[in-house]
């Protein structure tokens, strides 16, 4: 029986949605491969573990220690690789989050496993895993296969659907984690004040040079607020110092695939398009009808952003009430 080990990420005990996506996917391939899904997490505490049953895990192992409240790459990778060896895991699944990206290659190296990261599609062809991942920030895609027995995959967030597929049996095993390798450890976590991060947002409102100055992003923040969106930015405005780098979308910023991406005053340089073209619905607001952003847009409006955005905010408010 194929053993699929799925890493469940939690922060302050809350299970991340991305981990439920990974679990849904794991259950799906478990059905194709006649396998079993084992969920595993590490930390100080974890809440609502019944969710893991609902999305297909038959067992959940929680490695617990007060010293693991924050992420420690050395401790987490050691615990996880030892556990994968102990249960003889064939496939390890992570979400391609900040933690998943950091942790998964450390584990794959300890297991001598091949690793495919940031997958946007995975198929089982004649019993073999074929994974697809974007390269050049999405300007091209590659299909790959593994040459190793043990395999590690990370899944791009917001791409794989949540599928409720309740496991018939479910067992929770808590293990006290000891002999921790804490050579690299987080001593403090700092939150950005109250802002939604583009990497996690379901809706993003991005601005570019067409906004003419940093003060005009206020208008986008208002639009973001009525939509429940995060604010993003093009490279040009980040390099000009109008917005922080954490908001940059594109090849040297974040690659995103929200359900709605609104590009305001962004012409659509190839390096920006690369970072957002996989968004499910793209809206462009630009005064130049020939701007490349319109080539990837599902909906567009040609005109002055300073006139359009305030009216759009009013219209959305009306619709939402």
């Amino acid at each position, binding site marked *: 029986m194929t053993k699929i080990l799925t890493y469940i990420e939690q922060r302050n005990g809350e299970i991340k949605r991305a981990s439920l996506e990974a679990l849904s996917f794991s259950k799906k391939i478990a059905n194709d491969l006649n396998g079993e899904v084992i969920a595993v997490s590490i930390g100080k505490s974890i809440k609502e573990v019944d969710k893991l049953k609902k999305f297909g895990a038959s067992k959940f192992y929680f490695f617990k220690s007060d010293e693991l409240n924050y992420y420690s790459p050395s401790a987490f990778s050691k615990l996880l690789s030892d556990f994968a060896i102990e249960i003889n895991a064939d496939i390890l699944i992570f979400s391609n989050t900040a933690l998943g*990206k950091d942790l998964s290659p450390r584990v794959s190296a300890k297991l001598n496993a091949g690793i495919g990261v940031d997958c946007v599609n995975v198929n089982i062809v004649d019993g073999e895993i074929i994974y697809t991942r974007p390269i050049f920030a999405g300007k*091209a895609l590659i299909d790959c296969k593994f040459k190793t027995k043990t395999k590690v995959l990370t899944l791009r967030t917001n791409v794989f659907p949540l599928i409720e597929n309740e496991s018939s049996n479910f067992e929770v095993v808590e293990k006290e984690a000891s002999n921790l390798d804490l050579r690299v450890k987080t001593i403090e976590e*700092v939150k950005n004040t109250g802002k939604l991060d583009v990497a996690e947002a379901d809706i993003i409102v991005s601005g570019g040079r067409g906004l003419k100055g940093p003060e005009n992003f206020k208008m986008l923040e208002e639009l973001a607020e009525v939509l429940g969106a995060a604010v993003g930015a093009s490279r040009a405005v980040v390099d000009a110092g109008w917005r922080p780098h954490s908001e940059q979308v594109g090849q040297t910023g974040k690659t995103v695939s929200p359900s*709605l991406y609104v590009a305001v005053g962004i012409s659509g340089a190839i390096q920006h398009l690369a970072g957002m073209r996989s968004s499910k619905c793209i809206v462009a607001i630009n005064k130049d009808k020939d701007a490349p952003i319109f080539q990837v847009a599902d909906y567009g409006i040609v005109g002055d952003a300073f006139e359009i955005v305030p*009216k759009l905010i009013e*219209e*959305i408010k009306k619709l939402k009430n």
Partner: protein
Amino acid sequence: MKIVACVNHVPDTASRINIGPDGKSYDTNGIAYVMNPYDEFALEEALRTKEKLGGEVIALTIGGENAKETLRKALAMGADSAILIKDESCKDSCAIAKILADEIKSLSADLVFMGKQSVDYDNSIVPQLVSEYLNYNCATVVVKFEINDKTIKVEREIEGGKEIMELSLPAIISAQKGLNEPRYPSMKGIMAAKKKTIEEKVPSSVESLTEVIAMKKPEIKKAGKIANSPEELAKLLREEAKVI
């Protein structure tokens, strides 16, 4: 302090990518190459660390003859020496990391800086893999770096915030944009770089653990709808796209 900065020679981010005749790699015709943008931050931090603590900075890359351009740039920015491991075959991150690890080991480097990812294959796993192969400590996606004696404190970017991490030497640090403002090579640096020799080496024998079967372009979207007013746009998003 012996510091290594790994720099990769990659297509400029303004490049259009087309599929090569083998259907598994990209067409290199007409592509302009640059130093991987994230590696500029890595090299800059390596130079600043050397300026603070003394020692040397060695620029290291794997690639073909043309990768020497990126090494020349590294030398012009201030690296003391440069090594090219000559290998033009297409390898996966695990194989690349093994080659780098072997070289870093033979150099007995104390501290290694790399970009958090290469903007070609976008894996962002090489720094972690190298650290595992060498048993070095490693922190990734670093936006702030401090070193005091043998203790390193970094800020690493995560969703919606930062993790402040501590680790000790020997260490590998992967650089994120925002870590610093990379310097431009000075005229003096450019002239000095021309006189320095680039050491060429052959790679250790390694194997890829994954294999590319096919490369393809993303599907082209059909033309979108142009709304005539914000009212119409809001309505389309609500009723047709059902996204608001």
